[in-house]
């Protein structure tokens, strides 16, 4: 049921809007990271750690707030007979889907803009090779961010779905 609903919900306008917000957050994070990679590489640990923190923190915080308006959905699903575990898995899957699309779009747009930016300030495009070497590391970090974000969202949903249907529906108004 979770997969059925998560995929259907994912197609919606609500999630398209959520995705734009997520992509924007990731774009900012990725652009900063990629820009630093082009200029300093990832060997500089002092640069790497704050950026890693940015990536890992930006996404969960964004996703946590995105689920803030989910109370009415939780209330309706509970009213129709969805168990707590089902509701949590629906939101977890949705956040994973939104996160993956957000990460991939963010990286793509981040790389494009970083290369354009570096070209504009006369930095050689060859430096893009530094980026290619570290792309896997970047992807792993982003996916870790997605997972942490989805778990944070799932925890928030679990807490919200512990309330009665009336409390969930009233809270959404």
């Amino acid at each position, binding site marked *: 049921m979770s997969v059925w609903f998560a995929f259907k919900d994912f197609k919606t306008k609500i999630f398209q809007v959520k995705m734009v917000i997520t992509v924007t957050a990731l774009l900012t994070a990725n652009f900063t990271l990629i820009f630093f990679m082009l200029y300093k590489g990832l060997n500089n640990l002092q640069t790497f750690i704050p950026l890693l923190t940015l990536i890992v923190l930006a996404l969960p915080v964004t996703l946590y707030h995105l689920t803030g308006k989910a109370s009415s959905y939780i209330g309706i699903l509970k009213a129709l007979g969805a168990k707590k575990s089902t509701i949590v898995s629906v939101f977890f899957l949705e956040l994973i889907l939104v996160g993956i699309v957000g990460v991939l779009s963010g990286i793509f747009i981040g790389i494009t803009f970083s290369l354009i930016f570096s070209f504009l300030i006369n930095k050689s495009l060859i430096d893009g090779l530094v980026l290619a070497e570290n792309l896997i590391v970047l992807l792993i970090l982003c996916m870790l961010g997605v997972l942490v974000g989805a778990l944070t969202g799932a925890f928030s949903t679990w807490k919200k779905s512990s309330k*009665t249907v009336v409390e969930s529906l009233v809270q959404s108004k």
Partner: protein
Amino acid sequence: MEHVKKVYDGNVKPIKIFEDVNLQFKKGEFVAIIGPTGSGKTTLLNLIAGFDNPQSGNIYVDGVNIIKLNENEKTRFRAKNIGVVFQLHNLLPNLTVYENVELPLVLLGVKKTEREKRVMEILNQALIGSYANRKVSTLSVGECQLVALARALAPNPKIVLMDEPVEFLDSLTTDTVLAFLKSEMFKEKTILLTTHKRKVAQTAEKVIHLRKRIP
């Protein structure tokens, strides 16, 4: 309902809605609950559906004391036995008409072929079969209410609770909804319906008047 007490936390002092309420509904009965705003009509339905908990008392639905069930047990019990129609229908806007009606059956783990048969049977009976693939966001309020009724009926519940289902509908759509309530689909089901409209209450077999408590 036995000795049910329900009090809400007010800003200044607690708001007492019910004190020692005792009510009994027969199987297959169509009951209209009328009363002014704030008299506790919605609260009554919420308590029977297990959406809210009373401070004290017992509520038996088909012999099961729902007060004693935990949240998951209550949810499971509701999925099989109680269909609910909200005043503002509470359909999921991202799903089609068909998917909204199908959702309670998906939650119950009903097989796809059985789901298809059941959903189309109800939609056709509600005269909205041709809307099956439309998003509910494209429907009128009256059409949404018919979808909400169809969704409540999907798992073939023993009890259908309706909170002012025709409140925002014009007289023509109200007649369509009432005709649907009188159809074969609702035969042998206990229907509890709250309303402000006398015309709607007159269609019921029994009418319960709730009075607003004077603080």
